[in-house]
């Protein structure tokens, strides 16, 4: 039973990552009705950007906490710029095209990013070790062992989810974002420059991916060029299960998926390699039962 704490921590960790990724999907869908399949690869890009930043900061002789801050800032800035760029140069021009064209375009962008990392990053085909930047060690509560870095990351992840939620629902930018999401034309008539709000919205959604990528990198101490693929599928699943377009739904969906995975691992340790198979099967059952997602009908939180 000493594993319970570990499972709980692991589940929370993964749920935070999934929730962050799912929030991005939901934000993009809410504001532009687009499923942005390059989202996972933007996450990968953020993690690799963070890695390069750590190397550079290390070469400059910065202390470990500074390396951490630099890496985080670079990952977030890089994903913000790439996300805004994708929306401004690729998604906006296609906004009146059939949805399938848009979908195809984002898949191609994602593939291009992924392959570029594989080909141009030194030794990019193989997994890269990500330096440990957070305090090592941990502590016991009863029989359970808790990693300090995991706790820091979960708190940071939950705080960033809260921050994004606050921005959407309580800031002026969030107000403009929701107005554009609900009725772009009326939003424009109210003086909102949607040509600026849309890239900023994509920047926000992509920053959450960059943040998720950094959490992943710091927790698992290893990244690879295709890490975004599975995370995107899981994040997208979480967003759909929660009811696409609903921020709370995305967060709940993320933790739900992680909960299912963790349950499989905890209940059947010998089957832990199959955790995704079980989790997806359970999600398929869930979607069959609630085809529009768990929270879709309430819909008031859509952005």
């Amino acid at each position, binding site marked *: 039973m000493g594993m319970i704490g570990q499972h709980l921590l692991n589940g929370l960790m993964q749920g935070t990552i999934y929730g962050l990724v799912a929030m991005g999907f939901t934000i993009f869908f809410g504001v532009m009705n687009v499923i942005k399949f390059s989202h996972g690869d933007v996450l990968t890009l953020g993690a690799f950007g963070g890695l390069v930043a750590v190397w550079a900061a290390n070469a400059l002789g910065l202390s470990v906490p500074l390396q951490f801050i630099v890496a985080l800032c670079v990952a977030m800035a890089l994903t913000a710029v790439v996300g805004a760029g994708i929306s401004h140069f690729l998604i906006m021009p296609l906004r009146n095209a059939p949805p399938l064209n848009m979908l195809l375009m984002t898949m191609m962008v994602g593939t291009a990013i992924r392959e570029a990392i594989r080909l141009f990053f030194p030794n990019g085909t193989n997994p890269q070790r990500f330096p440990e930047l957070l305090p090592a060690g941990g502590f016991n509560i009863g029989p359970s062992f808790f990693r300090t870095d995991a706790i820091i990351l979960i708190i940071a992840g939950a705080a960033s989810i809260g921050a994004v939620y606050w921005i959407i629902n309580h800031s002026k930018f969030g*107000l403009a974002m929701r107005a554009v999401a609900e*009725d772009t034309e009326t939003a*424009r*008539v109210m*003086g909102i420059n949607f*040509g600026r709000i849309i890239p900023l919205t994509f920047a926000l959604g992509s920053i959450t991916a960059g943040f998720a990528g950094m959490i992943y990198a710091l927790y698992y101490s290893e990244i690879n060029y295709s890490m975004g693929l599975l995370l995107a599928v899981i994040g997208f699943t979480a967003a759909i299960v929660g009811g696409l377009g609903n921020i709370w739904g995305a967060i709940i969906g993320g933790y739900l998926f992680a909960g299912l995975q963790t349950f499989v691992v905890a209940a059947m340790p010998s089957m832990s390699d199959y955790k995704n198979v079980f989790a997806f099967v359970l999600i398929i059952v869930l979607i069959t039962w609630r085809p529009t997602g768990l929270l879709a009908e309430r*819909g*008031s939180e*859509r952005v």
Partner: protein
Amino acid sequence: MSGHLTVENIFTAYDRADVLSGISIDVQPGKITCILGSNGAGKSTLIRSILRLTPPRAGSIAFEGKTLDQMATHEIVGLGIACIPEGRRIFAKMTVEENLRVGAYLVNAEKTVKARLGKVYEVFPRLKERAKQLAGTMSGGEQAMVSIGRGMMTDPKLLIIDEPSLGLSPLFVQENFNIVRRLNETGVTVLLVEQNVNQTLAIAHYGYVLSQGKIIVQGDSEMLAKNEEVQSAYFGGAH
């Protein structure tokens, strides 16, 4: 008095067919100018042209002597032109107060926003009671208040109102028109686009009658009220 809008010989088309062909209007500062016309005459297209949601393919529009011809919609709104759109178009998933705040999007000072909110709540006390309610859950009449209040939040020099009577009971239409008149008395120039001839002419100073994309009659509202072409424009007369 500010809020002078001039539209000069504009042509506007969706795809290829012209919906407006050679429209010129002059919205005098401080006055209520109305555009009358039946369904499909091009009234909404005229508004879309002014706001450049559907930019005209020819002709010129100026506000207070400044040309709007290269501007984006949000820049035009920034000059002091607000619009209460047809069908209210409130943000259903936002609260009443959030809807009103979107109207004051271009205002940065929270103090100013608060002051304007206060003014709107004075005109529509019911909106104050319902400030935290989702706008989509309100009645049609209340949504109309939200839409008008949102337009007031912009504190415009020129207020464009598209078919405010649509889908409202006659009593409510009268109430809204009274509000429009009072806004005008505080110095707001109004461009009122309507199908409802009699109630509109009762509050407007000057009017244009639009039919099949052209102005067929214009004049003082007293004159238009007696004009036969105005009547025929509505009852399908040939021109």
